[in-house]
């Protein structure tokens, strides 16, 4: 999946509708207002749908930036 596509999917999962709100690979997800336990469940569902991977919510403790989330999924999935 292209990195830009992934960021768009992530914005959907977080319900960030403001197109001007920039999310980059360095954005720290934990600092986002929208990042709560329900959003984590949305992200898990999005990852399952796009990559066929089921990541337990306990693994999200390690997630900080968007880049760290991509690492959790596996960098090989992204171009």
């Amino acid at each position: 999946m292209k990195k830009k596509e992934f960021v768009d999917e992530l914005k959907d999962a977080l319900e960030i509708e403001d197109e001007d709100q920039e999310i980059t690979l360095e954005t720290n997800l934990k600092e986002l207002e929208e990042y709560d336990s329900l959003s984590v469940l949305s992200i898990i569902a999005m990852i399952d749908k796009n990559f066929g991977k089921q990541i337990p919510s306990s693994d999200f403790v390690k997630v900080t930036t968007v880049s760290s989330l991509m690492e959790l999924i596996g960098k090989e999935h992204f171009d």
Partner: protein
Amino acid sequence: MDSIFDLKNKNIIVTGASSGIGRQCAITFSQLGANVILIARNKERLKDTFDKLEKGNHLIISQDITEYDKLEQIIKYSVEKIGRISGFVYSAGIEMTLPLRSMQPSYYEKMFSINVITGFELAKIISKTKYINKDWASFVFISSVMGILGQPGKIAYCSSKGALISGIKAMALELAKKNIRVNCILPGVVETEMSNEMFQRLSEESKKEIIDMHPLGLGKPEDIADACAFLLSNASRWITGTNLIVDGGYSAR
């Protein structure tokens, strides 16, 4: 000495009997003298439950009950082996926590298929004149307090449990002339595998919040099984079309 609260000589079908509330129901009913027909998918766990039952004329049926075309034959088989049915507890169900933005039609369909439709299909078959005890029968559907209360991330679960609550009222009116009573139990959060799995997906904060909302703490499967036993017994002779809330005070707020 016989008690109006026991289940002697009653043949009771329990679905979801391999774990949680269903498992405890089967055990409790056997302790009260019932013959129990246990239905679930996992054969090994069914056998585990079976081994914990008090002596009686019990039966295990390993079957995925969402295979609707198989339901009639398992009920027919149960009646042939054990006798006419005096009780039915629908305890099979799944949980889902996912916000509205991530929901898909297929997720609702799966939830309703297992939590509602299969239960009603089984009731349809069990209530047939050739299978049901003509003088006395009682159906109990395990719903949830989440069928009358809301919680973020639980649209599919809440609506499926709510469907049971209203559905049984119509069913109760329809089946009264056959001496079949139909009721729902609405548990709060009970300590089962299913609720433990759900808790693991939530933050510590959310978990504590949910526990704190139960004035009497979380429930045990025995709490629900005992309430089911009452609704299946002669002591609830005049109770039909209603919901029995068993939630440690959760919904009293």
